[in-house]
């Protein structure tokens, strides 16, 4: 499941860009690999990140992985409902399971479209 209207990072985050606002989550493939999520650690509103830098982590029953910022910018909103309901990321990775919103700085670079990301997933799934 790889929606066409989103952009992707190789590290399995998705980005929805609307003007200078980017909404970020982890992909369906990522949530499936991790298994049932038990905890999502997110940065705070006001924190700034460069594209590709570590911004938090997701923890499942079997693993904990870092999540990386797909764009450069400032965090303007985090999905606080994940604190009590991390399973939303498993249930709706592209919907209610979004992680955070950025105010983008500069032009996003190096992101993949749905087809390119599908190739990444295919190579990693085997």
């Amino acid at each position, binding site marked *: 499941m790889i929606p066409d209207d989103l952009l992707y990072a190789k590290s399995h985050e998705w980005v929805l860009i609307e003007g200078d606002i980017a909404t970020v989550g982890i992909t369906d493939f990522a949530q499936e690999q991790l298994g049932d999520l*038990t*905890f999502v*650690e997110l940065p705070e509103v006001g924190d700034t990140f460069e594209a590709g830098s570590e911004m938090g982590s997701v*923890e*499942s*029953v*079997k*693993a*904990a992985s*870092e999540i990386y910022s797909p764009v450069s910018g400032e965090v303007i909103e985090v999905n606080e409902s994940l604190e009590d309901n991390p399973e939303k990321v498993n249930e709706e990775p592209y919907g209610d399971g979004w992680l955070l919103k950025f105010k983008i700085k500069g032009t996003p670079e190096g992101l993949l479209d749905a087809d390119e990301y599908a190739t990444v997933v295919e190579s990693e799934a085997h």
Partner: protein
Amino acid sequence: MPYVPHTEDEVREMLAVIGVDSVEDLFAEITEDMRPQSFDLPEGLSEMEVLSKLEAMAAKNTINSVSFLGAGFYDHYIPAAVDALTMRGEFYTAYTPYQPEASQGTLQAIFEYQTGVTRLLGMEYANASVYDGGTALYEALMMAVRKTKRRKVIVSEALNPIYRVMLDSYTSNLDIEFVTVPHKDGLTDIPGLKAALDTDTAALLVQNPNFFGSINDFTELFAAAKAVKAVSIISSYPVLQTLLKTPGAMGADIAVAEGQSLGLPLSFGGPYLGIMTCNKEMIRQMPGRIVGRTEDSEGRTGYVLTLQAREQHIRRQKATSNICSNQSLCALRALVHMCALGELGLKRAARISVERAHICAERLTAIPGVKMLTKGAFGNEFAVILPVNAYEVIAKLTERGFVPGFPLGRYFDGLENGLLVACTEKTSEEQIGIFAEMLRGALK
């Protein structure tokens, strides 16, 4: 469960499965020169010979001296139940088995230990323990550094200097900046600590009672730390905790303690027990094992390791810690000790210890030239300033079977005449009287 790793039969069986003839063949890849040439072991001895050799060595120890030595480690009475229960075969092993299928007893004991220490310190969560109080303090500091992503740590100089040496050693290759706020004639400099706090501060490290025995309330200081989002870490003394305001009530984020005073003999420095507790915001940063209570598929209560995704067997270099083995057997001793004494027993032990120390302080300061260093409220330990170098007195009295205390000059410049004196419920008034008279004589 048996604690023999594998029998010869099992070794043969495993070799057969992988199709190797002998253990020698299994390690054939390792060239001759890479193998240990000799373990340099002496010839074997009979049981009788070994026993007499070890007894002769043990006889060199001084074991029956009367001790007023504390400095973070205290000679409290240990009920016989502690030895009897912890030495049961089900528990008595250097290894801690964690498989829930095979180890419900061990896991339940750890869970109850965690419950006991959180209640004692008034905190929300505990881990299964770490090596000792100093290691617990280091791990607490690293929790704060990870959580805040800052590198400055404010340390009170009235924190046990033994811990401060350990922290320096553990962090010597890490990018951490220590700011040490000097003690003020043995008192924790609370205004000084408060002034040192800023938005670059990862953690604040204090101790109650402090190294000189003074009792503090850090509530306001911890609130000030919270205001700049710094993590408040307190090192506490479990036995006295039954009388003092708890770290939780003061608003500490992390409370650690040396657990030795809960049922562990002093035995020349270890093995001891590092107690670690924290509040909910810090739990994801807590290193080491944590046992949780849950239900199995049939609804029965069971115990399992929880929050394991933080740990080194899953996260390797990103683990919360790589030196976080738990002291399971020592933790069990602490649990049995707490249960055997109960709240009332622990309180009585603490009260008597404090009373004796106050009697002792009165007797010692009645000697001409001996002055109190510790001001204000103190627990079962206090510091005095002698008219001579403390080492002189320690040498004289130790020779006669009385260890008078800890020489402050060992860690504090300018306090060469300072002596730190501790009492427990084992210290009798008679011993205090003899100690005072011996000191009076030594100072003449």
